[in-house]
């Protein structure tokens, strides 16, 4: 199995991954999840059996890590009230915050499907690999996600 140097993978996809995370996981979680994603990818990389579809592979890791962070956040919020917010660094600029807030309210698969299709221009085949679903299901996730967004925005 001939894999490219990991750095080549990182150079090619890190901006897409980071933007995906800022948009879909939110500017507050993006940095941590970005690190988690690439560390997990680096850990698994030598055992990878195919070198095609590397973008879908790494975005799938990002999708999963974003869900982990989301769940962890939910758990943390439950038992005790969080201490008052520390004055923190201003979050990363994210273009059009309100639009992404609506994107973040979509179910996780639709969120990923909408971003990867509309912004990254993924084919349904690539998106199906990412979501570990059929192409038909990938198409449906894009369609449903866009429909919901349109509805939200028209309100």
């Amino acid at each position: 199995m001939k894999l490219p140097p990991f750095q080549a993978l990182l150079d090619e996809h890190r901006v897409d991954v980071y933007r995906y995370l800022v948009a879909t996981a939110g500017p507050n979680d993006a940095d941590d999840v970005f690190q988690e994603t690439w560390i997990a990818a680096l850990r698994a990389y030598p055992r990878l059996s195919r070198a095609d579809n590397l973008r879908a592979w790494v975005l799938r890791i990002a999708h999963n890590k974003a869900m982990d962070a989301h769940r962890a956040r939910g758990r943390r919020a439950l038992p005790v009230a969080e201490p008052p917010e520390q004055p923190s660094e201003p979050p990363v600029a994210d273009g059009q915050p309100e639009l992404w807030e609506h994107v973040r309210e979509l179910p996780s698969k639709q969120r990923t499907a909408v971003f990867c299709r509309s912004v990254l221009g993924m084919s349904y085949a690539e998106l199906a690999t990412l979501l570990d679903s059929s192409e038909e299901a990938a198409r449906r996730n894009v369609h449903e996600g866009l429909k919901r967004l349109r509805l939200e925005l028209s309100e």
Partner: protein
Amino acid sequence: MTEIETMLRRAAAGLPDVVPDVSARAEAEGLVDVAYTSVDSPLGSLLVAVTPRGLVRVAYTDHDDVLERLAARVSPRVLEAPTRLDGVRRELDEYFAGRRTQFETPIDWSQLAGFTRKVLRATARIDFGHTGTYRSVATGAGSPRAVRAAGNALGANPMPVIVPCHRVLRTGGALGGYTGGVERKQFLLRLEGVLD
């Protein structure tokens, strides 16, 4: 494309394009099998790569090809990690500034096969400002008659400058060839005071 997709695309143009560094954490977790950086030198930009055991590669040209070969031969976990190479970078800077005559950076000999390794180890024993011959390194490698094979091993030296194959000349004093081209060999021999 629908209107909403156009909106998303436009908004995405405002997303950040500067991303956090991951090499520090990758290093801390021991996940970098080959760390590399480029080092500016009077001979052009040098690609320098190390494994946890030590130096594996110094390359004058074709940096992308070199990295691909390292990924195939050593490990695909190849990452640009400049801090791990701070020591060797400093030694190279000092050498080219004329302030260092010996490299202390450890070398990973494990990537080199039998005879090549012996020849290059014999070459590494030639001191700054001195020279050997293809015959003397063949002898140093334990095979005095394998002069041509010693020449081939030197031509394939993966760590020029630090394993000083530029110090090996033809018997009689002719320069002979060099991995980085004969001008670089002349430059290094001048730097070391062997040539005027």
